[in-house]
């Protein structure tokens, strides 16, 4: 038989850890954890602020040097473009002094030149780059005998021999330009047109 000598509300637990104490410990731990969390968040925020401030200070020191370096780069680009432009003058020209000496050297002895004309055009190449294009037009006369081979030999020399070979794109005798000399029927007159390779400015 079992008899309760104390009422139910008078009963006390024999455990050293009561429920209320457990709740207090849990609540206390939670509060400590929350406080630690809050401190951690706050300190990471402060650290972030300090890093930003440090970057600002560093930037204040670096910015003038950076701007000067950027300006230098821009100046270099501008100067290089200017240098390239003036170098274009050198590369686009044809040295006519040497070309004329070359013409004299390759002209067969039986041919007499009567006129030499050089003209220049500035054309746009397919890549929209301007280029100088030169044309050399030679007029001359030769004796009727062997006139065809003389002129043909001259034409070949102009196309293949230095200093023309690297400059000239085509050498043509225009239709009707090789004909009887109206002043002396025993001679033939002719014209040779040499088109030079376009010489690009850039």
């Amino acid at each position, binding site marked *: 038989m079992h008899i309760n000598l104390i009422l139910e509300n008078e009963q006390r637990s024999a455990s050293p850890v009561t429920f209320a104490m457990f709740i207090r410990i849990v609540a206390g731990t939670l509060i400590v954890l929350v406080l630690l969390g809050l401190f951690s968040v706050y300190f990471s925020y402060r650290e972030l602020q300090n890093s930003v401030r440090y*970057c600002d200070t560093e*930037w204040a020191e670096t910015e003038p040097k950076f701007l000067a*370096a950027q300006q230098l*780069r821009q100046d270099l680009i501008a100067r290089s473009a200017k240098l390239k432009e*003036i170098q274009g003058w050198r590369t686009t020209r044809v040295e006519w002094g040497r070309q*004329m000496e070359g013409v*004299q050297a390759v002209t067969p002895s039986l041919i007499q030149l*009567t006129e030499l004309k050089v003209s220049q055009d500035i054309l746009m190449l397919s890549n929209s780059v301007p280029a100088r294009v030169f044309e050399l037009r030679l007029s001359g006369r030769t004796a009727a005998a062997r006139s065809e081979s003389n002129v043909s030999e001259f034409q070949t020399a102009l196309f293949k021999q230095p200093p023309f070979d690297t400059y000239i794109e085509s050498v043509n005798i225009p239709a009707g330009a090789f004909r009887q000399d109206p002043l002396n029927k025993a001679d033939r007159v002719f014209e040779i047109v040499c088109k030079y390779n376009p010489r690009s400015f850039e």
Partner: protein
Amino acid sequence: MKLPENKKERLQVFVLIGIGVAAVLYAMTQLVVMPFFASKQELRSSLQTKKAKLEKAERELNFAPKIKTEFDSVTGELDTIIRAHVLRPILGSYLVGVSETLEMQARSCNIKLDEVQEIGVREPPRTGKKATVARAFKAYAVQVSVKASYEQTAAFLRKLEDMNPYLCVSDVRITGQPDSPETHRVTLRIEWPIEVEGGKEQGAAAGRGDK
């Protein structure tokens, strides 16, 4: 303060406390937590931007000595070319200097110049991306008339071209004269580069005789 004895009233108090706590939590979230985290996020992205800027600056500064060396070299080369070969006006006129040069070279080839005529300033065309970019150099052209032999003319041109590698002979016409087979009528068109500053040539020849 004691909680009411009545169970219903006690529940109402708990509900009210719950609503109050929820309201306070909501208000704290809206007014403190969210702005705090937004501000932190903003700080973080600002830090990243600043760090990236600093890194870029550092890279640029690391390149700076190389760029400076290249800049000095390009400037030196450009200045040498301009000083030696680009035409400069004398008291506002390009023609004076050109005539002197031509006469000096003609004399050395035993040629007498008949006429040196100013054609003016010309600009090679530009298209594409560079169409709106002004050229740094334009051409100052003159037409020269002489009577000379073929050899003399070739030597004259060679001397001019050797003296200035940037000078360009753009037109030549040599016509034989029936009455004097050794001497020909020669017309030359010669162009010198001139420097343009701010879109304008230096000196009075600017804008004159543009063709």
